[in-house]
């Protein structure tokens, strides 16, 4: 059997040094469990290359359209357009005590040693070629550092925008987040796009939480349906730290959000929740791996999917309990609502437990709208369409309410309202 391996356009890459490293890492194929449902032919059409500042230009229409898509949040904001920070659209004027935010490009110039956690990885630790591409071309983005003991009240907003060009249609962005001991912060990453050309974004976020730090991290993925979104979120948690992730995987023809959480210190807690809502022929893919490498850590994975039309949902959730990680308490759930006969969901738990005294639970459900509930609502005068919408919203509600910031809940509810006709 022969396997077609997608190749990237050499023309756009030839000038970049270090591509041998990308080439050395195989492009994923359908044989890779983590890429089984991905549209490989489309992925091969993504053209990556070094970001250029000219890439920031966009038409007034596209700019206006994009401005309307961004949730209204107070606080610091970094806007990245086609892989380059757009200073005019960013606002870093009121950072407050204990917070430093810089562009990744500046940090690479000024203090590259602080970025080892992001760039200095051995080839063995790079999971796939898209992460390798990001490491190669994702030379701008955001670097966030919260100093020891500081608790930040306002969220930090990173907006990643792609407006595909003719020759280079895909961009790479890097985000580095480091929380010092006993600090806390909220980071919101909004991933959107403009225009209706084929293209995509490839973002990578690396997060380090020192002892007893707490990070709330929210991802809103709402790319145009002509685009692809690939996201890798890699987290290392030290003793007693807390990571709360909320992902809303809503847009793109193929939207992929991968979490790799490494619980390195004792009593660390990670809580990942997500909602994916597919319409048309979207494929929305969540790849989650939580590694318990220390004693007495807890982890939760709570993902919900709503799939309409011919859309496909993927949940591939791993719990990996390493030898010695005794006292692990891990739970995973994946509930899905299929709104159409042609929609599908592929849910797969992966559990590997190599420690003692481990409590590990997982469960998945796939269901349809409850006819009895629909009937009940209609007998109260609520028309069928509205009753359907109410029930769908009710199903999504658990994920929406896991978000503390009201402005984001409003944004999400509005967005779900559109998807839901």
């Amino acid at each position, binding site marked *: 059997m022969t396997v077609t391996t997608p190749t990237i356009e050499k023309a756009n890459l030839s000038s970049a040094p270090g591509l041998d490293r990308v080439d050395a890492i195989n492009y994923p194929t359908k044989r890779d469990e983590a890429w089984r449902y991905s549209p490989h032919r489309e992925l091969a059409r993504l053209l990556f290359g070094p970001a250029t500042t000219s890439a920031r230009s966009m038409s007034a229409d596209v700019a206006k359209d994009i401005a309307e898509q961004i949730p209204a949040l107070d606080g610091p904001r970094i806007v990245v357009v086609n892989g380059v920070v757009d200073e005019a659209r960013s606002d870093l004027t009121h950072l407050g005590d204990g917070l430093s935010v810089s562009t990744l490009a500046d940090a690479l110039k000024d203090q590259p040693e602080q970025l080892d956690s992001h760039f200095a990885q051995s080839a063995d630790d790079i999971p796939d070629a898209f992460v390798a591409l990001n490491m190669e071309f994702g030379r701008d983005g955001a670097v966030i550092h919260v100093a020891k003991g500081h608790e930040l009240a306002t969220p930090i907003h990173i907006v990643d925008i792609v407006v595909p060009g003719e020759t280079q249609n895909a961009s790479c962005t890097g985000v580095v987040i480091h929380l010092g001991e006993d600090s806390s912060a909220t980071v919101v990453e909004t991933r959107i796009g403009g225009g209706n050309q084929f293209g995509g974004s490839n973002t990578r976020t690396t997060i380090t939480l020192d002892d007893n730090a707490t990070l709330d991290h929210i991802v809103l993925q709402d790319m145009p349906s002509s685009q692809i979104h690939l996201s890798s979120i890699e987290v290392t948690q030290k003793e007693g730290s807390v990571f709360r992730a909320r992902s809303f995987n809503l847009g793109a023809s193929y939207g992929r959000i991968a979490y790799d959480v490494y619980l390195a210190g004792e009593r660390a807690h990670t809580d990942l929740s997500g909602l994916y809502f597919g319409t048309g022929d979207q494929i929305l893919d969540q790849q989650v791996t939580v590694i318990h490498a220390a004693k007495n850590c807890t982890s939760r994975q709570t993902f919900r999917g709503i799939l309409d039309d011919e859309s496909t949902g993927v949940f591939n959730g791993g719990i990996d309990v390493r030898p010695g990680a005794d006292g692990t308490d891990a739970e995973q759930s994946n509930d899905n609502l299929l709104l159409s006969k042609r929609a599908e969901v592929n849910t797969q738990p992966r559990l590997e437990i190599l420690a003692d005294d481990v409590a590990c639970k997982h469960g998945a459900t796939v269901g349809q709208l409850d006819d009895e509930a629909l009937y009940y609502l*209609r007998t109260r005068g609520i028309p069928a369409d509205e009753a359907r919408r109410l029930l769908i919203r009710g199903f999504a509600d658990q994920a929406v309410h896991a978000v503390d910031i009201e402005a984001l809940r409003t944004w999400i509810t509005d967005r779900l309202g559109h998807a839901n006709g």
Partner: protein
Amino acid sequence: MLHVKNLTASIEGTPILKGLDLTVGAGEVHAIMGPNGSGKSTFAHALAGRDGYEIGGTATLDGADLLDMKPEARAAAGLFVGFQYPVEIPGVNNMYFLRAALNSVRRARGETEIGARDFLAVAKEAMDLVEMKEDFLNRSVNAGFSGGEKKRNEILQMAVLKPRLAVLDETDSGLDIDALQIIAAGVNSLGGPERSVIMITHYQRLLDYIKPDFVHVLVDGSIVASGDHTLALHLEDHGYADYVNHDLDDVPGRALSGAVS
């Protein structure tokens, strides 16, 4: 107000209602009693418009043909059915649901929608009626409610929607005496010359609290006896044996025994 003529309902070819006739005038309270499996709940669902039945005959409410309408249109026409087993709907807020229901009905009738603040006053009044606490409104519809809470929530909806005709299916089942009294008081205070009630019940107990003007006995899909409230008392003493020990299909015109006035 309600005219039901020769109503039939079957599921997958199995007949359940076999020609039910019933007339309910404005402001009247009727009780339909009958043994298990006689078609009581099917009658409620046939009026409400549940899918899955093959329906025959006619049922008009204030002259409008109910059987031709979608369930939501029947509600707008003034029908309310309180269910024996109200469905739990996790994630849908009770308050939001009640307001959506009221506004849907108002819209369908060409009335203006009611705003959140005005609605709160409507809801508060309805909650007082069934002695519910305010946190009730912030919970999901029926989710995790006790049996009594679910039934009270049904009467709460009736109080908000103010129907022309309320059909209450086994509203008394599973209630302790306190809850039963609260519900009965709620139904009684909603009564009036313009609102009619049909209570479907297995036991006479509820009728001690809500006194019916008429009592009907439903057996094997049709009404085999009608009378005043003393008929219910007779049934309490003698059960349905008088009506079910014979092949009623063969003798539809059978003379009634018992305390029929």
